[in-house]
């Protein structure tokens, strides 16, 4: 084994110091520009942070593919959900006329919208793919209100960084960052293939995030909460038992 020369020791020391300070600066910058996901801890945190940061840098404004009418799946698959409780069935029996979407948190005008109110807002219709983390996909035409429109309507404060959305199925809550929430294709959807959104597919209201996997597209949403911090929600991982708390990545753009 060679003896280390003084020059080698100094060079190595300087390189190590530079690397450590470089990483520290990178970490500070990443936090500042929102490139650190809530599940950045643990043994898989490094890979997850790289994925999220890379996707945010490269695809912040990119549009999900939109397809032609002829590509709409004739046999879309509705992933089974836990049994819908009595409360849901009461809403269903009344045709969801009294279903409300409550909006609260870091906003200036707390609000609550019925499905018909949401339908009176400017709508967007898009033919996009939904893909499950298991590997299967289907294409459908979705109609809904761009989430950005709702965020604007309620006067979302500039310091809000995430939108937490909750379902009537309490375990199925999730959240997305502002880049995804303000993306033009992110919809609070109420229509599918030209008809009302069927219950197995998430009707009356489903969060449609076409640039993320199926599990971020929570069915039966009832409440939106704007926040700058995900720590107080559940275990602080950004999504509930159908997402991060079950060991799945919070960011599901991959």
């Amino acid at each position, binding site marked *: 084994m060679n003896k280390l020369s003084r020059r080698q020791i100094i060079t190595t020391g300087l390189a190590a110091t530079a690397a450590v300070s470089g990483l520290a600066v990178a970490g500070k910058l990443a936090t500042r520009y929102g490139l650190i996901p809530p599940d950045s801890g643990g043994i898989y945190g490094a*890979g997850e942070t790289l994925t999220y940061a890379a996707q945010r840098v490269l695809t912040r404004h990119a549009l999900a593919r939109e397809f032609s009418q002829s*590509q709409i*799946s004739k046999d879309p698959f509705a992933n*089974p959900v836990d049994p819908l409780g009595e409360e849901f069935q009461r809403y269903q029996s009344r045709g969801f006329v009294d279903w409300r979407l409550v909006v609260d948190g870091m906003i200036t005008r707390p609000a609550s919208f019925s499905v018909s109110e949401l339908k009176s807002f400017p709508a967007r219709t898009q033919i996009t793919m939904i893909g499950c983390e298991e590997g299967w*996909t289907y294409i459908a035409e979705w109609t809904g209100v761009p989430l950005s429109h709702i965020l604007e309507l309620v006067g979302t404060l500039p310091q809000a960084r995430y939108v937490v959305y909750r379902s009537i199925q309490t375990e199925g809550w999730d959240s997305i960052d502002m880049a995804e929430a303000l993306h033009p294709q992110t919809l609070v959807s109420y229509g599918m293939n030209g008809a009302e959104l069927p219950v197995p597919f998430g009707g009356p209201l489903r969060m449609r995030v076409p640039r993320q996997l199926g599990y971020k597209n929570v069915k039966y949403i009832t409440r939106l909460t704007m926040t700058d911090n995900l720590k107080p929600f559940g275990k602080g991982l950004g999504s509930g038992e159908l997402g991060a708390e079950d060991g799945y990545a919070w960011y599901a*753009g*991959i």
Partner: protein
Amino acid sequence: MRLEFDGYSVHSACAIGTLPRMTETIRPRHSFLVRVTHWLTVLSFLALLVTGVEITISHPRFYWGETGNVNMRPLFTIPIPSSRSSVPTGYGYVLPDQNGWSRYLHFQSAWIVAGTGLLYVAFGFFGGHFRRNLLPARSDLSPTRLGISIAQHLRFERPSAEEARSYNVLQRLTYLVVIFLCFPLIIWTGLAMSPAFESLVPATVLGGHQSARTIHFFVTGFLVVFLLIHVLMIVLAGFRNRMRAMISGRVTEP
């Protein structure tokens, strides 16, 4: 005992003096960078393979085109039980779901293998590794010479001492296919399954989202066959010496 080492003579501290052996030559074989990137690739590939199998179990059906789900006819099905009750497999039971950590580890390993690959390819081009060690000699590519090499492999002939120093023509061609065809294709088809990445680079070129998944599966199969033959060849050529060459960088020649 005296050992020749790259033109220098060194005195061996090994206790092999009792064996009636001639002077052995120890030659440098693989560079430090080749060895480090080789073992990093081995580790990441194994992690990717195990987690990839695990993810496949949640939907062991493959399709061609953009869409595919249990309501559609698959291209083929792997006859194994699934980790999802929604997949009809014919087996009466459902395997436990391990997709959460499998996905985390899959993508973390993908980052490592992609980074390692970039480093290796940069070194290969600029350090002369590809030109020196992987580019086959023009004379070796004649049908006669190729035929001889194929016949030698098919007879499982133990390679000549010469081959401990450099790769034979079939080895060179196979490595080139793995490095410049399989790895780029498996990375691209993997990324093509990411809904966010698809917003940047559509999977249309690959035949669609499900086609990308199916190609990803077949390239994995090809790489597993490559791995098995690679290990078999190492055993045939002398496991200890070849492993030593890839770990310490030196090879012993009688």
